[in-house]
């Protein structure tokens, strides 16, 4: 391996330099100590107090981001809603993971199906028209979908196919970013998935003359169903 005693010595050298540097005291304005959740909520954009306000805010933010947000009455109507998308976009291959919502929904489409659970052929995933995943939370404040490598079928399912469909439950809608981070911390404790991703709209770039193009490397479309 590349690690050697040389690198261990380097670690001690750098930490030594840092400790030496920190013997010089610098002025810290506003007193020491770290800001709290209350401090952050006081400054961040407002996020709505009730479920309805938050759902409306999420819908507005999703619209701004050119994501599609649909609220469904129950899981039974999900298959029909996905069927409409399948027909409109002419899907021929579907990727998903074996989640409670995502597994059944993907099977209902009646198309060749790739499940990413436990490993898959990446070239096959690249040829899929859509990736269907679940999520950990929806954030009203920013229109964000929070996914992890455990809740959403790995790292690439929500990023490689040109259309990412997110299936969320009503109770997964949270008010703001602090709440989303607390939810993730509470849900996983010390046993974090290797990836947590805050997805805010479909992939985009403005690197050419600052003009917006969707689908730079990730999905061109993002559709969110809340059941």
């Amino acid at each position, binding site marked *: 391996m590349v690690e050697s005693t040389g690198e261990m010595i380097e670690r001690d050298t750098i930490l030594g330099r840092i400790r030496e540097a920190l013997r010089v005291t610098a002025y810290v304005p506003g007193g020491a100590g770290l800001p709290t959740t209350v401090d952050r909520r006081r400054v961040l954009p407002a996020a709505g107090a009730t479920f309805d306000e938050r759902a409306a805010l999420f819908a507005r933010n999703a619209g701004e981001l050119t994501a599609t947000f649909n609220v469904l009455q129950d899981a039974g109507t999900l298959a029909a809603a996905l069927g409409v998308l399948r027909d409109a976009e002419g899907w021929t291959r579907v990727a998903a993971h074996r989640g409670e919502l995502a597994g059944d929904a993907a099977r209902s489409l009646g198309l060749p199906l790739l499940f990413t659970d436990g490993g898959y052929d990446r070239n096959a995933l690249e040829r899929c028209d859509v990736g269907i995943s679940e999520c950990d939370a929806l954030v009203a404040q920013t229109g964000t979908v929070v996914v992890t*490598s455990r809740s959403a079928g790995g790292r690439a399912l929500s990023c490689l196919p040109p259309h990412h469909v997110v299936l969320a439950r009503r109770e997964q809608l949270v008010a703001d970013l602090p709440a989303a981070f607390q939810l993730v911390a509470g849900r996983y404790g010390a046993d974090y998935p290797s990836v947590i991703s805050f997805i805010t709209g479909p992939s985009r770039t403005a690197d050419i003359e600052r003009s917006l193009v969707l689908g730079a490397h990730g999905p061109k479309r993002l559709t969110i169903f809340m059941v």
Partner: protein
Amino acid sequence: MTAPAARFDTDARGVAPDLRHRSIIQTAMAKYEVVRDRSQSWFQDWEGARDLAARTKLEAVGRLDTYLEQLVRNLEARGTRVHWAGDAQQAREIIVGILREKNARVVVKSKSMTSEEIRLNDAIEAAGCEVVESDLGEFIVQLRGEAPYHLVFPAMHLTRSEIRQTFEAKLRDAPSDDPEELTMVARRVLRRTYLQADVGITGANFAVADTGMISITENEGNARLTAALPRTMITLIGIEKVLPRLEDLALFLPMLAVMGTGQPLTCYNTMYGGPRQPGEADGPEEYHVVLLDNRRSALLADAELRETLGCIRCGACLNVCPVFRNVGGHTYGTVYGGPIGAVITPHLRGFKDWVHLSYASSLCGACTATCPVKINLHRHLLENRRAASHRDARWSYKIGFTIYAAVANSPALWKVATRLLRIGMSVRRLVNGSVLDPMRAWTRTRDLPPIAKQSFREWWRAQGR
């Protein structure tokens, strides 16, 4: 004048009068300002947010040793290999060593200014690997053999037709100069690269000590794919990017977005806490994090400059800087341009060679006013100038100011000198701006206000009082 200072001088003279460059930059910045102001207005208290961000960062760098050790402990606990690099050469050796061990042929990279700082791509190519930048702007400047123009917008100086010409010449694939079609060309090319690449290399925006995670902010999804598909992943990160707690990101992610691109939140904010874990579908088998010092500890040791380690590389100070807008990003000749680059580069790369950048400012303070972590940028520029005059005072200045002090302290001498000056200035007007003009450095491109016909004392006396 040092060689970098002479180059700055020449390049600035070339770019500043270039009206085409000016209109490209002004158009881009006008778009940025509109969305930035809109996103900022959604904050309940933006100034309060800046205070919290500054406080968090000062706390983080103020206990950097503790937070770094916590970060490393948490990263290692979940199978990440952490490497420490004291300088650029060590960082290059560590990364090239990993590439050799993995017999890597193709490396895909997501955006990393720190990798520019250590000139990583040159080292990777010298080791016989192909390295491909995957961020669209970086991909474009890599094809052109240029350095990134701006911390956040690497290709903002190019027009769509220039980019089409580059794609035509280098990729033989340029359907039109429509930004969407050009983006899709890059998407197709890079899809193949992601699937082939043996190793993915990323930069990072934050490192979270309490959970042991690396946070990467991006819009395109290129970093996510770089972190998902290759079998080995490497992240290069400066030691100053540590945040104490995961929830600190709830503040820093939206602030970085608002200041960086003007968005309320960047499209993808992803936290990486290790290689593929048991039971997960995909991800690299190995995850390496390289922590880079490269003289950051020298900034830490300076009580005044320590706060510059709070910089989140959002680029906001570049965007508002009148000098940056006029001389352009490449003129600085440094990885970090604009006000923050002018402040830190002399301390990172050699004071004598780079302190001239501290004079590339009108000290208007727009940078300080916009900085999300409240770095007192224009004061540091002034401090750099002060340090330069202490270290290396020019004889001509010393003599000049000694004479001036003597004249200004004596009413009689002052009276004579100002009379002589008025005569001298009226003679000078005959040669205004020409090679004979002793004030040519100023008058070549600017007007000089005419000197008053009488002094205040003369005017007072003429009033008969």
